[in-house]
């Protein structure tokens, strides 16, 4: 006998948000978007939150029961605090040179954004662009981040009120990075945010996109962003993702990427902070000769939890993919690395690698790491591996023997472990920002005397 799961007691709150959003907008100007939202909402209602973990491989190690008892509500457009340009510069990665779309509490704020268009690049508000431009945006939106079966893509699609559209023209080489800065103000507790971004990179174009998430306050919040990246053939997109929310928040992020022939996608992630964090990335190599690297660093402390759900599908021959994640775990925190590579029939000459290395700083931590390969093609080269270890006593003694204090030596080794990933962040001001963050974060890690 089977019993249907009882609907989450908090679902009604999200239903109210959905109804209010519809009323406040008088419906979406784009009929396609309006119907997509309706479908998304039905799918979310059908799925609910994935709080049943038994037999649910995707959520086996991540406990979301908190979402059943604690509702997070959408904030309306007029609640944006008085954030100044100074605050933004102080609290987030920033350079005046970048093309920056500032998104505050899920709202695109053009007054604080900078350099939104140069030749070959345009950055605009997504919902408005869907209404103005019609077809091209409508057709792309929701194509990669499929709502069916994914409650958080469905919830985001139903409830995002504003978003960022980045269009790079065919052949355009965008010299400076595009930055989508998601800031969350220090407001009421239990607000929910649904950042939505769509990048359309033209054929043979070249662009770097920084995506960052920063909380200005310490209150609990839910952030459920969706980023869809459609590369053009022969294009090259670099993606730097910086996730730095406060330790009471929940971050459930989804990134979906399509790589047609001869395109290249390089993504590097820096994730730390939230009570529950999940970075769900899927890249689909849909064209021949596509290449992707998915690299990341996660740092967990206290009772935080970070889940990395990283998957790549090789559909065509001569593709390469490289998944490389590093974790630093302290306190009683937990992390998950679930790396998947699927090589479909016909994807010959695929080269795929997966690796997850973890540095454990206390006995109370837990890492569930499961790199997996599923191969249905011949003549492929695939390898995977995972390790978990402690600070190396030989390295520690070497540093100590030169006079460096125990604390300083341990800090150097931990940051040194992280640096292999952090050094990939470009451009330099972003990398330097992350090193400054590490200098703050690492000494606070609960390490049972290692630090």
């Amino acid at each position, binding site marked *: 006998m089977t019993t249907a799961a009882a609907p989450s007691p908090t679902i009604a709150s999200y239903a109210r948000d959905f109804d209010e959003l519809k009323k406040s907008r008088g419906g979406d100007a784009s009929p396609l978007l309006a119907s997509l939202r309706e479908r998304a909402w039905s799918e979310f209602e059908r799925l609910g939150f994935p709080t049943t973990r038994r037999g649910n491989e995707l959520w086996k190690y991540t406990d979301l029961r908190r979402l059943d008892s604690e509702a997070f509500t959408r904030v309306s457009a007029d609640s944006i605090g008085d954030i100044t340009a100074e605050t933004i510069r102080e609290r987030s990665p920033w350079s005046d040179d970048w093309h920056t779309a500032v998104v505050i509490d899920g709202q695109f704020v053009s007054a604080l954004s900078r350099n939104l268009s140069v030749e070959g690049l345009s950055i605009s508000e997504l919902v408005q662009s869907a209404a103005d431009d019609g077809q091209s945006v409508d057709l792309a939106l929701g194509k990669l981040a499929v709502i069916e079966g994914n409650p958080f893509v469905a919830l985001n699609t139903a409830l995002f009120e504003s978003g960022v559209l980045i269009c790079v023209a065919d052949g355009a080489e965008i010299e400076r990075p595009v930055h989508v800065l998601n800031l969350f103000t220090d407001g009421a507790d239990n607000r929910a945010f649904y950042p939505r971004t769509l990048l359309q990179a033209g054929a043979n174009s070249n662009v770097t996109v920084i995506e960052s998430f920063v909380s200005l306050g310490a209150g609990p919040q839910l952030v459920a962003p969706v980023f869809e990246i459609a590369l053009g053939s022969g294009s090259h997109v670099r993606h730097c993702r910086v996730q730095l929310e406060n330790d009471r928040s929940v971050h459930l992020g989804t990134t979906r990427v399509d790589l047609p022939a001869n395109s290249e996608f390089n993504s590097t992630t820096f994730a730390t902070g939230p009570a529950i964090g999940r970075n769900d990335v899927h890249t689909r190599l849909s064209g021949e000769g596509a290449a992707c690297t998915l690299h990341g660093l996660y740092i967990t402390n206290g009772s935080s939890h970070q889940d990395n759900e990283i998957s790549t599908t090789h559909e065509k021959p001569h593709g390469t993919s490289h998944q490389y994640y590093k974790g630093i775990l302290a306190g009683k925190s937990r992390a998950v690395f679930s790396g998947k590579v699927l090589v479909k029939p016909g994807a010959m000459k695929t080269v795929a690698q997966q690796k997850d290395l973890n540095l454990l700083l206390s006995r109370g931590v837990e890492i569930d790491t499961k790199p997996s390969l599923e191969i249905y093609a011949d003549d492929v080269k695939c390898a995977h591996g995972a390790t978990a270890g402690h600070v*190396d*006593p*030989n*390295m520690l*003694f*070497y*540093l*100590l*023997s*030169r*006079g*460096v*204090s*125990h604390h*300083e*030596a341990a800090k*150097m*080794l931990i*940051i*040194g*472990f*992280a*640096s*292999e990933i952090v050094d990939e962040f470009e451009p330099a001001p972003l990398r330097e920002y992350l090193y400054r963050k590490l200098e703050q974060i690492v000494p606070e890690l609960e390490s049972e005397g290692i630090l």
Partner: protein
Amino acid sequence: MLEVTNLHARVVDAEDGEILKGLNLTVKSGEIHAIMGPNGSGKSTFANVLAGRPDYEVTEGDIKLDGESILETPPNERAHKGIFLAFQYPAEIPGVRPWQFMKAALDSRNEAHGEKKLSVREFSKLFDSKVAEVKINPDLMKRSLNEGFSGGEKKRNEMLQLAILEPRLAVLDETDSGLDVDAMGIVANAVNALRSPERSFIIVTHYVRLLHHITPDIVHVLADGRLVETGGPELAEEVEREGYKRFLSGQEAEPAPAGA
């Protein structure tokens, strides 16, 4: 300066017994001592015990620096007091640059001595001049510490650290092993350049060849955890000619081969 009396030591928690079994050694300021010995005699153990490696425990005896016991002194504070160990197998440390490491080391020593830290500019100048002095490839300095360094480059990097930190007592643990003639010359030059009435060296080695470049004042033979013979440079020559056979237990009474 250094006074080691009746030193007994073993690997922490090891079932098997002591490696050092009553070692006595006195090193005065400005002296260069060579400690030679066959494999397994306890040479590296002694070098590491002096530096305070936590893998070893001293079970008996004492190590005094300037009259004060340092047995309870942690390794970083021993460094502040002027002890330096050039490692036989220097660790490779990902993500830590040689410049950054040496700046942190010098800063912590200066802080311990209540002295001013060098500014980035001052330190860079010092660092660059020492890099040139020990003729280490500057490109290596952009890498992580010892990562991808050849054996010789690692030893040269130890000499760089020695030259920057200018310790009062430098212990070289088989620094000559795996070095070609040129690299040996570099190591010897680094040591000879630092010879001074205030600085002492303990050169731990299996072979005599490094001692052709650095003339020791006193040579000891270490066998089975004890210094069994002490002499001048001629003792090293004897070891080169005749090996360690005479010093191994049960063979002390045997006369040296005729014609030696």
